[in-house]
């Protein structure tokens, strides 16, 4: 088991990634030095606490459980985590002596004990995580079935309506879609939300942005319309589809089945975490890689109307936890179950492969899921190379190249990737698909990575790979 030493610290970047928005990030940074803090400390269970001097006479009491991570603070802020929690974590991350290892004081202990008991209870019960029908299932299976049928009926109505819109569009010509602009698509998307088919709604909204996406948009618009039509047809004929494909179709339409099956316990390395706006909600995607199972898992978390999604895992930490996969779409999406012990701040990169293999694997995956835009992959020994106005990732030992996806070209992370490589081969994790490769994380081969020489279980790390540090690119 884990030693009683203070839990390994996170990096500044990892802490700042938890901030719900730029304002909090800034405010948190301002509190990220020892100055305003007193009575603080940390312990081996991953708890960090401190008193922050505010404008009032009483200091705020801030406690963070880094295993969650979970936060509590006596300040009135509705941001989550609040600037005090961020500041406290920054002080902790910078290793300042203001937070010595010690005993949890009473004012912090109460919340910590309560929280940990709740988590443990949830684990015992099986909770929603291990996904038995007994835990989540309602009392009346008949009523549930009737509700499901009603919803399926609504989706079918939506799919038919969407089919009609697509047919009308093709009849009149895509050239006309250029003029009709966002409004038409927004309205259609709203109809799909009413039809309880969020998957269809998201795809329709996507269509709205294509006419403004630069040269070649008619081709892209036709492709996406055709795939949406394919999804409509598949839903309307779902009874005739084999089960795995039917599950994939349900997932894409937005009819999510609960996570099921035996949970996979593993040491999961957090590869990437990023948010994308999706209508009025924000979707957070967290990619994880299981050290022993070799599986890649995707955690989704949603935040409504300007609030950050609840789940946050800093990139680069490894969590010992159970994951329960959702059915459909390659079973990548999973639900985070019980966590064991304190996350460790290091991890080994996935083994990875060549650029040539990555694009081939994407092609193969389309057999099971023709709507797949991209799949997660680790590229080993690739070199970022400028090409025309864009960039490529080129196999160091070959001539195969993957173009970097257009969306990634304007992100600062691209330049981090180039800087890390310095023209030499590098390991990169990202999403590989028909738009190209979207780099999300890279491993620096610098000896200055600053990783500890000991992994979560106290085993000494000797290989050069494991000494390298993951650098988030998004």
């Amino acid at each position, binding site marked *: 088991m884990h030693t009683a030493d203070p839990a390994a610290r996170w990096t500044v*970047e990892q802490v700042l990634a938890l901030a719900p928005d*730029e304002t909090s990030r800034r405010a948190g940074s*301002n509190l990220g*030095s020892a100055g305003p803090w007193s009575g603080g400390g940390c312990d081996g269970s991953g708890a960090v606490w401190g008193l922050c001097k505010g404008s009032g006479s009483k200091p705020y009491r801030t406690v963070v459980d880094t295993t969650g991570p979970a936060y509590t603070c006596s300040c009135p802020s509705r941001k989550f985590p609040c600037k005090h929690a961020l500041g406290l974590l920054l002080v902790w991350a910078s290793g300042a002596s203001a937070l010595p290892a010690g005993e949890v004081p009473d004012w912090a202990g109460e919340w910590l004990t309560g929280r940990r008991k709740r988590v443990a209870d949830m684990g015992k019960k099986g909770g929603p995580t291990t996904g038995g029908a007994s835990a989540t299932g309602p009392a009346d299976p008949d009523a549930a079935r009737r509700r499901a049928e009603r919803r399926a009926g609504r989706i079918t109505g939506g799919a038919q309506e969407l089919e009609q819109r697509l047919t009308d569009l093709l*009849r009149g010509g895509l050239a006309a879609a250029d003029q009709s602009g966002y409004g038409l698509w927004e309205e259609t998307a709203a109809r799909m939300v009413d039809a309880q088919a969020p998957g269809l709604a998201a795809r329709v909204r996507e269509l709205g942005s294509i006419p403004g996406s630069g040269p070649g948009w008619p081709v892209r618009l036709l492709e996406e319309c055709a795939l949406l039509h394919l999804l409509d047809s598949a839903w309307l004929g779902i009874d005739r589809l084999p089960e795995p494909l039917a599950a994939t179709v349900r997932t894409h339409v937005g009819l999510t089945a609960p996570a099921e099956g035996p949970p996979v316990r593993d040491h999961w390395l957090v590869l990437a975490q990023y948010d994308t706006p999706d209508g009025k909600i924000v979707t957070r995607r967290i990619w994880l890689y299981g050290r022993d199972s070799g599986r890649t898992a995707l955690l989704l978390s949603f935040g409504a109307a300007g609030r950050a999604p609840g789940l946050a895992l800093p990139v680069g930490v490894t969590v010992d936890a159970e994951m329960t996969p959702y059915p459909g779409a390659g079973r990548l999406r999973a639900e985070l179950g019980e966590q064991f012990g304190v996350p460790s701040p290091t991890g080994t990169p996935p083994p990875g492969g060549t650029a040539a293999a990555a694009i081939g694997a994407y092609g193969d995956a389309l057999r099971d899921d023709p709507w797949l835009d991209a799949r997660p992959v680790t590229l080993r020994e690739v070199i970022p190379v400028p090409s025309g106005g864009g960039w490529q990732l080129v196999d160091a030992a070959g001539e195969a190249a993957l173009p970097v996806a257009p969306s990634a070209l304007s992100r600062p992370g691209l330049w*981090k990737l180039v800087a890390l490589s310095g023209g030499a081969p590098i390991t990169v994790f990202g999403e590989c698909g028909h738009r190209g490769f979207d780099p999300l994380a890279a491993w620096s081969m*610098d000896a200055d990575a600053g990783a500890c020489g000991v992994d979560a279980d106290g085993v000494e790390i000797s290989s050069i790979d494991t000494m390298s540090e993951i650098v988030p690119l998004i």
Partner: protein
Amino acid sequence: MPRTVTPAPWEELVTSALLGTDRRPAEGGGGPGGLLDAAALHTVQRRAGLLPASAAARPEPAPADPRPPLPPAARRRLAQLLADRSAPGGSGGRRGTAPDLTELIPQWLATANQHGYRAPAALLPSLLDAARSRTDLRPQALAFAGPRGLWLAGLNPEWRFALRGSSGGSLLPDVTEPEAVARLWEEGLFAERVALLGAVRTHDPAEALALLATTWTTERAEDRLMFLDSLRTGLSGVDETFLEQALSDRSRNVRSTAAELLSALPESAFAERMADRAMSCVSPGLTGDEASVSVEAPHECDASMERDGVVAVPPSGRGERSWWLGQLVEATPLATWSVRFGGRAAQEIVGLPVADGWAEELHAAWCRAAVRQRDPKWARALLGTPSVPPSNGPGTASLAERSKLLAILPAAERAEWVADFIAAHGLSEAFQLLGVCPTPWAEPLGRSVVDALDIARDAGSYPWSFSGVMGLAERCLNPAEADRLEVLTTTPDEPEDASPGANGYWSEAFQRLVSTLRLRSAIDLELIPG
């Protein structure tokens, strides 16, 4: 589901889709539904059959950087400082008690460079971005970024600034290889040649002069000006002949720069000529029984004066005689005056009364001469005693001129002079003078600033009237002072005549000062090689 065996070509489908199937039915009929079926099949087929692209030409790998990596704590700190810089908003309002991290970047970089660390690759983009928006960071940031930073900047047009200027050390040939140097000098771009000349001059002044002489007559006037300017580094008697020739250059700017450089060489024939002219204008005299300075400004600016760089036409609003006098005295070696005034020291000469109201003009010219010739004795004399109000002292009342004079004095003396000045006159005029004091402030300067701030607080003014000095104190006070300053962070009872709430703001400002000092000492510790 599509069952078509030979689908219509993709281009046909796109054309039909663009124009609409009403106007242009898809090949094989089937209307919109058939078109979408065929397009879906095409799309999935195309995506499933995607092949890797062919690789573009690979860039040259970045040159190796042998410097040691940063200690982990220092690396985390740099990430924090740079992350704070890029975070928008927040400024403008009350400054609060937390340190301003952005202001600590210059100090962090300077210390890291002193230790000779290599920059972490992942932070290079934010480092270059920081240097792009703040020109004052550039020299230190680029030195720290090193060869990999320069390599990276070459790939991103936004960082083109990094390739300009003389800091592109790795792009220049080794200055000890005469052939490579000669080739770049002959064929290089203007900026490269300026950088090259600078590098050679630093290495061997005489060699740079020889290099410049090879092409001097064929250079364009504005280039000649820049090249001539490079000779400031390592200027010596060896350059005199060349500079004398440059005095008859076609370009007026080149002539006056040559004259300026020559005037910094007291042994030169030029200096002697100027001294002769100046001595005919300024001479010892008697006012009553007392020794004094009598001044007879020149009546004309003859051709030989013009050749020596004296500008004949004064700026509007200035008399031409005093204008000429100023230029003559400015270019005259200061040692001349000691001989002229019977072996008197600088201090005594400056103390002499000047006849006919020429004092201001004469002292101002002496100030310029002291700055140009970097003469501490004269600078000291012209600055006078710090406790005398600037308007009554010798030399100049201008703070800009005074800070230039101060910069010539030895570091410790500078700090002491400014400390006494603050003790006598308070902080309101001290900002510019503090700027030339070496950091961290040596005692008694630090104490003097803190005492003055404390006095300002007791006087009941608001701290933001002193925000410039406060900011300097945060960056320049010795971090070891933090503990002594702690007592000032409490909020004492407000005196009756104080501005409302001022005490709270003062305690906040002092808290920020203390926490910034603590942070600076933490930064220094983190950068010590482990």
